[in-house]
């Protein structure tokens, strides 16, 4: 039985290797499956066997990019609590994505940040205030939100919204590709504020506007990669 156990273990490691895994994963606190991954999985599952041959196995049709691996990284960053509250700033959070699981041979073809709220946020202001969302890239990031000296910030996204929808998507493909060249982790800072307006400040309108985005849930980063080794073999076979 010992020999059989060793054989099984060897077979398992061989198979895991062919699946692109070095060890058997052991998730600690697995969360819900992102709906986008369920949708893609179900669509592929229902494709007839004959169409699977024709479909390019190394392309993600849903995003129109090359790739055969789609990962959704959970944000491991923390909220930033400044000692002196800034009246206009509703939300400030570090975003931290550990991309170290990407292997050397994987070519990143797409990265999309999703910011989720539990419901749409509408406000009835007549002064024309809007939500302003800014996303910064930081040179270094403290994972646990330890007090870190502010590193260089680079503004990546600045957008204004009259209303915040349940899900906001941002294309960070270029950022993530550059980032991989020198780091295994992606660090960002997210800020959501309300545009200024003297009348609104005086009436406490900004506070109520900020309260309307208390429905902030979380952020995640969807990354598509192409395993060069697997896709080269697949293309060779198809040519034959």
């Amino acid at each position, binding site marked *: 039985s010992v020999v059989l156990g060793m054989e099984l273990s060897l077979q*398992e490691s061989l198979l895991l290797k062919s699946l692109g895994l070095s060890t058997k994963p052991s998730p600690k606190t*697995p969360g819900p499956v992102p709906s986008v*991954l369920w949708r893609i999985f179900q669509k*592929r599952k229902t494709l007839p*066997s004959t169409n*699977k041959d024709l479909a390019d196995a190394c392309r993600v049709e849903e995003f129109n990019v090359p790739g055969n691996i789609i990962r959704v*990284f*959970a944000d491991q960053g923390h909220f930033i609590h400044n000692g002196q509250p800034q009246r206009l700033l509703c939300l400030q959070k570090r975003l931290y994505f550990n991309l170290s699981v990407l292997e050397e041979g994987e070519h990143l073809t797409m990265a999309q940040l999703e910011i989720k709220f539990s419901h749409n946020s509408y406000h009835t202001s007549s002064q024309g205030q809007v939500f302003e969302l800014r996303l910064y890239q930081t040179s270094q990031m403290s994972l646990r939100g330890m007090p870190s000296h502010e590193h260089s910030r680079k503004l990546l996204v600045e957008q204004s919204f009259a209303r915040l929808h349940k899900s906001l998507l941002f294309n960070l493909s270029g950022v993530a590709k550059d980032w991989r060249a020198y780091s295994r982790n992606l660090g960002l800072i997210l800020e959501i504020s309300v545009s200024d307006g003297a009348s609104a400040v005086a009436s406490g309108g900004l506070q109520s506007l900020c309260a309307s985005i208390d429905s902030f849930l979380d952020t995640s980063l969807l990354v598509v990669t192409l395993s060069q080794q697997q896709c080269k073999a697949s293309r060779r076979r198809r040519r034959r």
Partner: protein
Amino acid sequence: RSAYYPLVTPSNLCKPRRLYISFSDVGWENWIIAPQGYMANYCLGECPFPLTAELNSTNHAILQTMVHSLDPEGTPQPCCVPVRLSPISILYYDNDDNVVLRHYEDMVVDECGCR
């Protein structure tokens, strides 16, 4: 020399057989989200002389069965192996609890042939 023709019934011919692989049977149910299992199939059966068209044979396999029929002890029959496989996608958790959807080639046996 007289050729040796073993009696092979149609059910013994090389073709795909049903095999359902359950990920819980191999102890992977705690990290694979979906599918819980799938119809992987396998190839089984003989490649007898004379090889017919439906056995998906190569020229080499046809010659090998001819030689085998003349010298059954010295030359084996061709092997019944997968000749067309299709991919599946697997949804799973990695060690950091990230959710991964990965496309895997060569997971389902669609056709078998004599090689």
